[in-house]
């Protein structure tokens, strides 16, 4: 990595830490959600409808996905569109640094924040509510990585085409709710009626939730879910690169 890219990443990480709102929703809120749900006694009992799993077991991966979606869809596009709108990219374009480095830093930092949040969620789930560590750690990491890549790429499309930070936040909010619904925030994917479930499993949130659930139980995720995530990540990344507006 060239030196300007490194100093840009260092500077952007300082700036990222100065956004208490983003920090809270990405890094603290998902864990808080696990704590709140875990405090409801019935959610800690095995449920017949869930093949003997507990509600809290299902909400650990959902909370991690919540963090990924918050970071990618709600936070990152606003930063990108703001840098375009405020002509930060333009000023950097006149120097030996590349404006692309500023954008790359956003992917790296938001991705890293999600990883931290995921570790927190898993630790708190394990320690406070006895949620078993993922049965297949490798599979869990794989699905999470693909899900994060898909979410960040979708956020990259929003941040790339929205002309202003405000518009990108508005688009982000519009995309946020369907993504959280498909990830199972309101009702875990497993509990959805069959027809709806088939459709939801084609979305990045749905495929990721199911894949993480399988990995948590120690299985290798179905190829179907992995494929859905890979396709979303590739298509969105392609669109983000193709349609990004520098001005």
């Amino acid at each position: 990595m060239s030196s300007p890219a490194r100093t840009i990443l260092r500077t952007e990480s300082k700036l990222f830490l100065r956004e208490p709102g983003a920090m809270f929703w990405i890094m603290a809120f998902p864990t808080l959600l696990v704590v709140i749900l875990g405090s409801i006694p019935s959610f800690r009992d095995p449920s017949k409808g869930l093949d003997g799993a507990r509600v809290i077991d299902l909400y650990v991966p959902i909370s991690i996905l919540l963090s990924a979606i918050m970071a990618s869809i709600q936070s990152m596009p606003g930063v990108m569109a703001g840098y375009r709108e405020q002509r930060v990219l333009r000023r950097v374009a006149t120097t030996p640094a590349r404006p692309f480095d500023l954008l790359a830093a956003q992917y790296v930092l938001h991705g890293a924040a999600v990883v931290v949040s995921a570790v927190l969620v898993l630790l708190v789930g394990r320690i406070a509510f006895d949620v078993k560590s993922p049965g297949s750690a490798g599979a869990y990491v794989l699905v999470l990585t693909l899900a994060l890549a898909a979410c960040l790429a979708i956020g990259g499309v929003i941040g790339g085409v929205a002309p202003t930070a405000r518009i990108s936040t508005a688009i982000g909010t519009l995309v946020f709710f369907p993504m959280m619904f498909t990830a199972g925030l309101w009702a875990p994917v497993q509990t959805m009626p069959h027809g709806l479930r088939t459709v939801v499993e084609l979305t990045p949130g749905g495929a990721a939730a199911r894949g993480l659930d399988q990995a948590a139980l120690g299985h290798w995720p179905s190829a179907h879910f992995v494929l859905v995530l890979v396709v979303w990540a590739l298509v969105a990344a392609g669109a983000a690169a193709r349609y990004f507006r520098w001005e």
Partner: protein
Amino acid sequence: MSIIQIRGLRMTYGTKVAVDGLDLDVAEGEILGILGPNGAGKTTTVECIAGLRRPGEGSVQVASLDPYVDRTAITPLMGVQLQQAGLQAKLTVREALELYASFYDHPRDGLELAERLGLSESIDVRYAKLSGGQQQRLAIALALIGRPRIALLDELSTGLDPRSRRDVWGLVEEAREGGATVILVTHLMEEAHRLCDRLALIDHGRITAIDSPEGLVARSAAPTIMAFTPSQPVDTGALWDLTGVTDVRQHGERIELAGDDDSVTAALGWLARHDVRVGRLRVTESTLDDAYLDLTGDPVLTEEN
């Protein structure tokens, strides 16, 4: 060999022609001022030199490179202050200087630059909290921090108070002493006169005049202005007919006559012959402002008015 060479540059936005066949050569070590009315194509020209825009037609060469294509080679040589360019809202002055210094191999001391530009007290203030003038001074510091061989400064002193303006001028003169070539877009005649070796007037996307500041003044239709209060009413029509006179105006009792040196002699002779005594006589050379007005027909924009 000129360090900046523009040939037949033409830029259009939709149907609007911003730059229309512009040629320009800038010698190394020169400070070139670009003057012209708003919308004349000044900023577009600067952005083409900076390599931010691809020339529609024609060519732009900077230090024998194509600034739009050879980004890696050209950016270390250039410092650019754009009219519209921001910084991250929560970045402090110190952090901005450190960040931009890290982009170059032999940067200047950011704290010293800040001190020179009166930013020392705001060194830990975030960009969004700075006043417009402070943001402007920071932009200049960032443009000069890499010791550029070529500095492009678009509206250098817009929004600056007279004191900061002089600080900035000092830095530009210093950069030139260090061998830098400077292109300066300005609306301030005082700035143009004091700093620039040559001035280029751009109007409707073309260079309409290019000369030293003194040369431009001399080209003005009426380089000399004579003002006086006559002892008795004077037939201004007769003054119009005198040699070299281009304008006669009466302001109350006072008469202002524009022309050249010969018209002054002629007017004084005519007045003596008609027994008019001349009170409070003032003869002044016309200024760059007048020359500018003459050559563009555009009202001068100075911050003072």
